[in-house]
């Protein structure tokens, strides 16, 4: 008896010279919610399609509930996919859509009716049985898609960017809905997205993918605070980048100006890229409030709804700094930007 509901072992998908999935090894536990996060072309969707049975690996083994499923078509796998477009059958009503998978499994009609009604309650769409997909909003359609997949009680739910076609408010609402359903029903899931916010909020673990490989797989907070690579760090959120050279114990920018920076660990000599999240900078007018500090001039202030973003020029460097309350600083004001050394990450 396997602990994992899904195991991928050195799974590979290659079209001629193009490697879409490059030796991916990962396991998903029962009841676990794992997200594959990455930019387009990183292989996350291909990996999901391999699990769903829409593509077949050119190497490696896929096991679902301990059983190898290589070569098994989608209709003979115990997985259910929620597609990006919802992929509802346009000529069938909501009830017929949800019942489809049960009919294919030859579930008796009475039980189908009962389970469809129950599922409509769960996704908060009671009374929508006889609607056609064209008569519903995008968010409602995605709920039906969710219900259609959940109703067959698959071993594993597969989400293929199901929120990416929705507008922001709906996206957040449905995201919370999925999280609630996961907590209530305890299904196992693999979720694919390019939105790191979705990944962090929904998942037990997140796998960041790039060029067909998994760069790092960890709990969301670990991933955010201790990224294993420059790619993971930059993909997890916006950042300031400082290109510097280290030589003779001093850190200089590319123009040769001395930067009074101290890092937790000393840096070896050579060129480095230092990164810093905009929210970790502190602005003050006279005295620095953290150990690393630069004198800057405000070049632009952006209002971004829930916060303000200050664009700063410091010697040859440009920094962004997010603060929640508006400061009494206008464009051209002098300011001191400071931050903790521990908030800075260096890559070379």
């Amino acid at each position: 008896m396997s602990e994992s509901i899904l195991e991928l072992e050195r799974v590979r998908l290659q079209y001629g010279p193009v490697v879409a999935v490059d030796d991916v090894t990962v396991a998903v536990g029962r009841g676990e919610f794992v997200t594959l996060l990455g930019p387009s072309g990183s292989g996350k969707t291909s990996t999901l399609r391999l699990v769903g049975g829409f593509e077949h690996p050119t190497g490696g083994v896929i096991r679902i509930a301990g059983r190898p499923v290589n070569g098994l078509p989608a209709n003979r796998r115990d997985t259910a996919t929620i597609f990006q477009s919802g992929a509802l059958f346009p000529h069938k009503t909501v009830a017929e859509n949800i019942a489809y998978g049960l009919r294919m499994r030859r579930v008796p009609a009475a039980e189908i009716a009962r389970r469809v009604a129950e599922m409509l309650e769960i996704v908060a769409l009671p009374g929508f049985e006889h609607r056609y997909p064209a008569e519903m909003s995008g968010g409602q359609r995605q709920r039906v898609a969710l219900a259609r997949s959940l109703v067959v009680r698959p071993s594993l739910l597969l989400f293929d960017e199901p929120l990416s076609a929705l507008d922001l408010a709906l996206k957040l609402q449905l995201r919370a809905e999925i999280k609630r359903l996961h907590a209530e029903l305890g299904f196992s899931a693999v979720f694919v997205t390019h939105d790191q916010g979705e990944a962090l909020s929904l998942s037990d673990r997140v796998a960041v993918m790039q060029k067909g490989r998994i760069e790092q797989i960890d709990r969301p907070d670990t991933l955010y605070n201790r990224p294993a690579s420059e790619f993971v760090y930059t993909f997890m959120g916006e950042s300031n980048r400082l290109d510097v050279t280290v030589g003779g114990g001093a850190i200089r920018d590319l123009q040769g100006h001395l930067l009074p920076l101290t890092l937790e660990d000393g840096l070896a000599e050579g060129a480095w890229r230092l990164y810093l999240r905009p929210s970790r900078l502190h602005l003050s007018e006279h005295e620095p409030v953290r150990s690393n500090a630069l004198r800057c001039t405000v070049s632009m202030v952006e209002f971004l709804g829930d916060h303000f973003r200050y664009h700063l020029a410091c010697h040859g460097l440009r920094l962004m700094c997010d603060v929640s309350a508006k400061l009494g600083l206008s464009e051209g004001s002098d300011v001191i930007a400071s931050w903790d050394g521990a908030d800075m990450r260096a890559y070379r």
Partner: protein
Amino acid sequence: MRRSGDITARLLWAAGLLVLGVVSVYVALPVAIAFVMSFSGGQILRFPIQSWSLRWYADFFGSPQYVDALVNTLVIALGATVLSVAAGTASAWAISRRKNLATGALTLLHMLPLFVPGVVLGLGIAITFGNVRLFGMDLYGTRFIVMLAHSLWGMPLVMMLMETTFRSLDRQVLEASRDLGAGPFTTFREIVLPEVRTAILSSALFSFVVSVNEFYMALFLTTRDTQTLPVLMWLSLRSAGSPRLAVAAVVLMTIVLVSLVLLASGLRRKERVRG
């Protein structure tokens, strides 16, 4: 400047409408006039029409030769439609599932017969199958050989229309069906067929109309016993121009119109069910 532009625009538009009007009359005239003439009571084709009657309709449906030709036309068209739709739809489905150089070449291959004039196909099939026997029967002169010949035009038309339709299907919807446990055949029956019903019916109508009206191939491939209505009309055109031919023309157009109306009402009923 602005005024003169206005005037040119109006003149151009008026000229365009004039062309449209003339072409409308030109297009409607022969059809309308055949319709009117079919109700003439006279023996000969001349204007003005002196008396009105249905005698030529009685004459048409009382003539075994014309009724046989009508039956031949319908049987051949139905057969050609079944062949075209079955073969064309199957090919379109296979080709639409893939996209590479080979499918491009296959599509082109399917289209080739459309570029060959009917007279050439008719002559060629007559020469090639003139003495071929199938199941102990001469193939030449049968309705079956005409069905095959007409399918050469019907099948590519169906193939073109259905391939576009199949390609426009949402791939994710088909995958969703597989994902929920339906095999390829169930998916085709449950999901694909209802979606492409309109296209299949339209392409069937298309190949049916092409076969009903086609006469170059039919002329070369039929005998007195199997000749179609257009062939019979062509052969009687020079010898006996009578209002009976007008009735024949009206009958042909009615067949086409009735099939159009059947198609439209079939589609409308479906819409109501869905709405």
